[in-house]
């Protein structure tokens, strides 16, 4: 009996090890087969793997991916997910196939800090000269540009709120009791509430963020909920749970469809800017192709098409839109210049304390 049990254990171990070896072996074999294929047959399209959110995939395919595939004999493969998931993926798996990654500014900064991105050669991306200065090098000259800007402002239902909302400070107004939704601190637009609170009482965030949180505490009677996804906010407006919300501009169109009396406000102090940036992932075999793709993404043609479909606000200064076409987008020099930048480098460095205070003071 003992012996059989022992032999079973040995057998298991051998099997597990064997399976691992077989796994590695076949992978190696596949690689060489692929290599041979690409050497022998030049018509075989190259593969470009892009890590992106997954919103509006159909329209992006039509406007961006398909034309690029045809022009360059490339097959574009998407990996979709939220910022954190996708950043984690390339961090955990240094041999991942991902060539290009789209991220919000704060997450991209994290990626730069950890050395996950390839340095780009700006000469291969001439269209960078045609975009707004704010978008050219948000992560420094070595890394990728922003291809779109969105902004965080305020949406309110004009039929339910008597006095128009004009500034960030209005969110603290007494007549808005139990009617406001703000984003969760760990979302892209979350930290702007802390900045707005600091502005309201005129303190510098870096000197005294605790004072800002004290001020933010006073907004609690007005809060219905802190939300984690834009779809939640849209739903809360649709169900009449809230009449005021701090929102990113791309959510406005959906809110307006649900509540026709909803209005977008760029507060007097300025809406907050968020840049979505695109970077080449370290270890890619397709660096030049990836840079070519970035150039294509910044071209007037793509930027205009995406703007017309209301997917992304254009950063290319040559894109011209009518007033109707620009509704809901961060468009035009004046507006772009009015936006308040967010210092993500600083926020990332204090985020862990901020989340702690937020949990204990704002959520309790």
């Amino acid at each position, binding site marked *: 009996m003992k012996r059989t049990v022992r032999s*079973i254990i040995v057998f*298991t171990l051998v099997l597990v090890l064997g399976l691992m070896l077989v796994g590695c072996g076949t992978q190696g074999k596949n690689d060489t087969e692929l290599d041979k294929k690409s050497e022998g047959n030049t018509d075989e399209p190259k593969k470009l793997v892009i890590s992106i959110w997954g919103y509006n995939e159909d329209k992006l395919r039509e406007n961006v991916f398909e034309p690029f595939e045809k022009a360059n004999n490339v097959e574009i493969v998407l990996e979709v997910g939220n910022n954190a998931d996708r950043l984690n993926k390339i961090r955990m798996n240094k041999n991942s196939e991902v060539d290009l990654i789209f991220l919000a500014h704060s997450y991209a900064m994290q990626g730069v800090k950890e050395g996950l991105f390839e340095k780009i050669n700006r000469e291969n991306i001439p269209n960078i000269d045609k975009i707004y200065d704010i978008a050219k090098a948000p992560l420094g000259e070595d890394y990728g540009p922003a291809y779109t800007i969105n902004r965080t402002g305020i949406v309110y239902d004009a039929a339910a709120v008597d006095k128009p909302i004009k500034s960030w400070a209005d969110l603290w107004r007494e007549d808005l009791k139990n009617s406001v939704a703000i984003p969760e601190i760990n979302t892209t637009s979350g930290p702007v509430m802390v900045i707005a609170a600091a502005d309201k009482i005129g303190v510098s965030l870096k000197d005294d963020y605790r004072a800002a949180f004290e001020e933010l505490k006073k907004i609690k009677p007005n809060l219905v909920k802190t939300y984690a996804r834009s779809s939640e906010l849209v739903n809360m407006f649709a169900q009449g749970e809230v009449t005021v919300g701090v929102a990113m501009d791309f959510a406005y169109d959906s809110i307006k469809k649900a509540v026709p009396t909803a209005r977008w406000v760029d507060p007097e102090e300025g809406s907050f800017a968020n840049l979505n940036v695109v970077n080449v992932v370290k270890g890619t075999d397709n660096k030049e192709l990836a840079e070519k793709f970035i150039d294509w993404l910044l071209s007037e043609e793509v930027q205009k098409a995406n703007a017309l479909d209301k997917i992304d606000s254009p950063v290319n200064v040559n894109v011209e839109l009518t007033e109707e076409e620009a509704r809901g987008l961060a468009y035009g020099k004046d507006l772009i210049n009015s936006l308040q930048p967010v210092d993500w480098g600083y926020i990332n460095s204090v985020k862990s304390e901020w989340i702690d205070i937020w949990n204990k003071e704002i959520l309790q």
Partner: protein
Amino acid sequence: MKKNVYVYLLLLPGLIILLLFLAAPLFSTVFRTFQGNEGLTLAKYIAFFKDSYNRGVYIRTLKLALLTTLIAVILGFPTSYYISRLSRRARGLYIIFAVFPLLTSPVVRSFSWMVILGKNGILNSILLKLNLIEEPLRLLYNEFSIVIGLVYLFLPLMIMSLVGVMENIDEDLIEAAESLGATRREVFIRVIFPLSIPGLIVGSVLVFTGSITAYTTPQLLGGSNTTVLATLIYQNAMSLFDWDTASVVATIMILTTVFVTFLINKLSSRLNA
């Protein structure tokens, strides 16, 4: 004897997969939480529980999960008994109905509860029309709505576990008890209930585990002051990339689940005695 050994061989495929893909990663998650600068330590756990905020979140999560389990037992038991006594055909149909909530995504489910429980929702409109209340009740974004969402989500697991056991209770046993003079109530308490306990254990463990680890439902239906353990894990892992703290919270969840499972087992063996 020999035969028995070959039976063990049948365990191998499952065992290998579990070892490779479950036990190994789980071990590495749990192990790192005990690692300190000098050998093994409980420091991270002490730090976690020293914080009164964390204790509050822990107690809230436990409370919500236990409440959900209790309600699922109370609602699930009679339903399962009814289903288990139906003809084979009708049983299949009812089970499909019971499992229906599991077929949609948690996001859709939660959004539909917002439509029902909201300020202008179905429930409030009815109550207002009947003049039972003067202004809408706050039913959403609190612990009440989380429990409702969780019960709705996990009740099918309770029902499935109970029906599986109850349909195997021999009709003859019930008849025998009745012929010996037991009233219906006595039959239920002394025959049906004890025989259903294995299903009750499985169902309770499934519902409890599901509720204590739930993330989406508390996130969507909960309000500002209803943070649960899963939210803490998400914050630490996904926004702070602090895998150590996330692992600590995860280990606390695992240990709690194991402990409660143990308690449920103990409790039911006492009931059975």
